């Protein structure tokens, strides 16, 4: 049983999506509870990939492939993981500001947050302030993550915050920002709840904002 979980974890670390999906199925067939498969095999794998990224042994493509393996394996067990269909995981809405189509950092963060057991709603790139407001109203997330990857496009962040304020939604959620040109002083100046320089730091900040700091 442990061997299967180890193999699954390794398949996620190595970014072998087909093998990871097959092993998730094999774990279910062996009678391993879905929650154990998820936590030990699938999340264990994406966490390990994150550690390898942090120590510079993994590059972005390695993380993308690990995230693919994570998502495919999760899809196999998802029904068993939440048989009632209710998703009680904390929800985070992510998007990149209007005028900015850099999706790499946001995609990596989405994978890492999913790996941490969060329900991620990905709005994509080039997202207008109005679309952020609509998503917050509709999804009611605990956290809104806004990415900006150019010094010019990060100026859209205060406009999004103003639109949320105007819609009476700002006080209901925490806002986290990130992206190459953003800084803590910028985050302080626009009045958000958190800033992170990279995906790993963003995960720590998300946990802190959710009151789950480690």
């Amino acid at each position, binding site marked *: 049983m442990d061997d299967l979980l180890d193999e699954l974890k390794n398949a996620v670390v190595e*970014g072998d999506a087909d093998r990871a999906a097959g092993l998730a199925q094999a774990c279910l067939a062996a009678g391993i509870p879905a929650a154990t498969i998820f936590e030990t095999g699938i999340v264990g794998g994406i966490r390990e990939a994150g550690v390898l990224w942090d120590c*510079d042994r*993994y*590059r*972005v*493509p*390695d993380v*993308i*492939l690990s995230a*693919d393996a994570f998502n495919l394996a999760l899809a196999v067990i998802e029904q068993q993981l939440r048989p009632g269909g209710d998703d009680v995981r904390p929800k985070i809405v992510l998007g990149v500001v*209007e*005028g*900015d*189509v850099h*999706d*790499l950092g946001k*995609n990596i963060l989405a994978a890492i947050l999913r790996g941490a057991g969060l329900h991620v709603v990905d709005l*994509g*790139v*080039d997202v207008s302030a109005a679309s952020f407001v609509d998503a917050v109203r509709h999804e009611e997330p605990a956290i809104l993550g806004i990415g900006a990857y*150019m*010094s*010019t*496009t990060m*100026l*859209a962040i205060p406009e999004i915050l103003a639109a949320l304020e105007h819609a009476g939604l700002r006080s209901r959620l925490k806002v986290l920002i990130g992206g190459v*040109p953003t800084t803590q002083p910028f985050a302080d100046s626009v009045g958000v709840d958190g800033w992170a320089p990279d995906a790993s730091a963003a995960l720590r900040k998300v946990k802190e904002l959710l009151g789950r700091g480690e």
Partner: protein
Amino acid sequence: MTHDWLIGRRRVAAAVMGTPDCVPIYAALTEHARYLFGIPPQTFYTTPEVFVEAQLLVSKYYGLDLPSVRADVINIEAEALGRRVLYRQRSAPLLEPGPPLYRTAEDVEAIREPDPQADGRLPFMLEVYRLVGENTGLPAERWFTAPFSLLCAVQGYERVVRDAAHDPRFLGYLLATLRERVLLPWIRTSLKHPLPAWAATGDDPWASFPVITPSMYSRFVLPEVMALQDALRSEGYRIAVMGAWGDARADDPVTLLEERVRLQGALRGLDPDVQRLGPELYARVAERHGVALGLGIDSRLIHDGPVEAIVTRVRDYIGRAGRNGRLTLIINNVPGDTPSEHIHAAVAAAHLYGLYPIGERLEGTPFVMPDCEPFEDFARREGRLALNRPGSTASHG
């Protein structure tokens, strides 16, 4: 527009030989020029006269040694192949995200050579080259998208990553086809039109660590650039490929820098890699190979300042890597809303501390910020307060 660009050009040429009077400096300031003139993005990036005139004037305003007229290079060929370009007020043109252009070998087989007189902004680029030559008396620098970055532009980066892992033969086939049917014909055309040139430079930002892995670099980046160089060398053309960063994230930075010399015909380092690895390393590698060195000051520092930090960085790079006479400083992509005094400070510092022979203790020479004419006054004096072209909403007039 009259300005003697030959003086700066001679200084840059002398720096290649190691005999300039001063360390040359130039900047990639396309978006900044657009910002200063308040020109709407689509007008700016599609109207050759406006595009060239604005960048030449702004290069002149800052006293740069070489004019910089660069388009959004990595969109040009992809747009000609069918990718849509988005024009947004706050950024340089962007390729619209979307599904890959080519999914099957049949799709790749159907790729046709773009028409330089009709497809996308290829005609715009040819007219830009003509106007630069006409206005400066210098051959315009020819640019193209390097093979790997073109691959990412047409397919989307994540699709390229997945194909590199799961279908590398398809990726290789696509790369070879793009090289033969798109890049080589386009580079040949751009080098012949309207005045002949002998060198072209590829921009390859996607081929950077950690955006790629070492195996992707070995398999899909290095051999493709070399194939392009080989194909055009026999016709008398010199191809360099630059714009990749992440030297400090490579497994073996020294080996990577050695390979960069091969790809660039010189050595160019960009911040933050130069900061992390130290300018001395770049200088040593360049000297070992007997090539010129270009060091790029990072755009965030230029944007955020303060002036003291910019001056310190310029002085530091000159003191640590400029003593053999072969250094050129480059200000990396200048963000639109960069305060003009930051760029003036970088140029003044380069021309103060970079005077040959370089002094032993540069920090002992005080920097005095020069009096700089406000851009509005300069533009008014040049008779170009607003470029007064159709569609321009220049706010300075």
